[in-house]
């Protein structure tokens, strides 16, 4: 993976499973379909129920624009998934994500309160899981999605063990 400018030097990123793209695609499809369907309702009413307002061009433009934005996001999904990376260092876990808006998160093992492993229906079908780390800070949004189940279990055990060894008070 190309190392971006804000990444700490000398970090070897591990990537999440490429199959996670499918999960994101399903999420995208459900979300977009619902949104476009709701936004297209005025168009239906204008055409078939004789509504005077909104004008036809507006009724077409709103769902059209939303669809274009959604398609743009669809194109980005594979790159976004490729941009998710994590690295286990000696004392902390690094998680990076994002292309346009990049963020690199560091969670010290000693700060972890607990580790969650969550599996959604689509993820389960693909043999993936999401590992979530929790610290005493609510702002820590440390989700690591799209890990193969075995890797997720290994990471959870590893993180718990390291966390216990380095657990510090608040």
């Amino acid at each position, binding site marked *: 993976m190309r190392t971006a400018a804000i990444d700490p030097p000398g970090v070897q990123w591990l990537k999440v499973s490429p199959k996670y793209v499918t999960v994101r695609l399903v999420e995208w499809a459900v979300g977009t379909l619902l949104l476009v369907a709701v936004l297209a309702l005025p168009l239906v009413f204008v055409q078939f129920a004789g509504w005077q307002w909104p004008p036809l061009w507006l009724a077409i433009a709103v769902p059209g624009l939303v669809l274009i934005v959604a398609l743009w996001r669809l194109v980005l999904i594979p790159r976004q998934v490729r941009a998710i990376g994590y690295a286990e260092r000696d004392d902390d876990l690094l998680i990076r994500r994002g292309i346009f808006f990049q963020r690199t998160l560091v969670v010290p093992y000693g700060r972890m309160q607990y580790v969650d492993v969550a599996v959604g229906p689509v993820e389960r079908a693909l043999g993936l899981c999401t590992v979530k780390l929790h610290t005493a800070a*609510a*702002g820590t949004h440390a989700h690591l999605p799209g890990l193969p189940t075995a890797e997720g279990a290994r990471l959870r055990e590893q993180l718990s063990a390291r966390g216990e060894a380095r657990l510090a008070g*608040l």
Partner: protein
Amino acid sequence: MSLKGSQAAGSAVHTVDAGWHRVHPASPFVRGWVGLVAVVYFFGRDAFERMLQGRSLVDPHFNARVPWLLAGGGAVLLLAVGGFLLSWYFYRYQVAEGYVRVNTGFLFKQQRQARLDRVQAIDIVQPLLPRILGLAELKFDVADAGRSAVRLSYLPLEQAKQLRATILARAAGVAGVDGVAPVAPEQLVVSVPPSRLLGSLLLSEHTVAIVLGAAASVALSVYTDNDAILLAVIPAFLGIGAAYWGSFNKGYNFSAAISPDGIRFRYGLLDTRVQTLPPGRIQAVKVTQPPIWRIFGWYRIHVNVAGYGGGERHEHAARTTLLPVGRKAEVMRMLSLVLPDPGVDQPERVFSAGLEGLAPRGQTGPLDGFVTTPRRAWLLAPLGWRRNGFLSTRTALLLRSGRWWHALVIVPHQRTQSMTLQQGPLARLFGVADLVLHTTAGPVSPRLFQAGVEQAVELFDQQAASAREARQHESREQLPAQPPISIQQKSIQEEAHHHG
């Protein structure tokens, strides 16, 4: 926690100080006096009015009904008092073996226990009525964002103080087995005169917003020739007045004192509160100065404490205020209390630079120690680029920001939870990045704005390392063998559990 564990702990307790204590017998009446008064008023109003008018106690025309009414009222009253007495009887607490335990309820029992070494802060609260009766509530928080504070209400004030001293001494690991700790002596550090509090409220940002809003509504009503707008403003003003009164009531007579078991704050006009923060419990500090306050050189200080949580409610706002308004010298004194070792040689000079320092226009490097936004990125923050900066000392990270709204945030290294380095497309264009530090919930959210990418990445790496070292040095706190607080609920009827 298993029942077996609690029994084992319980038997160990009996050998040391097995004492289960009860709170003051008046407590349920103080808590539920409104209900009692309502019952008495509802049933006794008629008879009472007659008595006042000097007539016979019972209306001769309703002879048949009145005794029933009185009997009904008496029964309800008796039930209420009986309930109060029962709830008092079953409300017991114990301080032993590193735990505070509180048992409540007679039908649905609840046992709440908190580890003494996990106590983050301890308050003595006196609402108006208990204050008149010389009673006080003892309330202490453990580190779980304020969801489950342990309360003991109400105790006689002296007893509450004694208990607080005992808990704090044991929390600090000072007291031996022999129990009662002496009440620690205090030394006053800072006090805020009421006149300055009033001035600070009148000159706060809220006032500016209100004056602007009032001017706008007057202008609007003149322009549209419509007086109804002015009428609509009246309830808004009542609400604003209530908010000011609330702030004044809470902040009145604020004083901070130092004692061996922590920093002690007192404040309140009608309801008073004494708050004790044991040393090392503060997660992050923020000193701010709105533009108008600069005329008088006033500042205020807020903190994040793990047990206080981040609620919007007024109580939280008051509790997370370390200094509602103070001059610079007082700010320095408070900072030296909460950060005894700032990790620099001249802390006052560094804090001053953090509060009002401004980097020179030219690229001459950091003069006052703060690394600011590089000149190339001035377009992103045309006002703040010479202010936004950081300084990492041996023990803490200082973040300053705001050209008009001066702000200085201090996070001790060993309190850093996790960090995010962020960069959007615009920031990438100018070669800068933001660093966000995560701390426990509270009014302070530390963020370094627009630091040069090289410095930000270096700080990110370095900060992780210094936080690690600081944590390793801090060996005072032990590993928690059990969660800091645990609640057991069981009912007499097993079915009740299933019904929810």
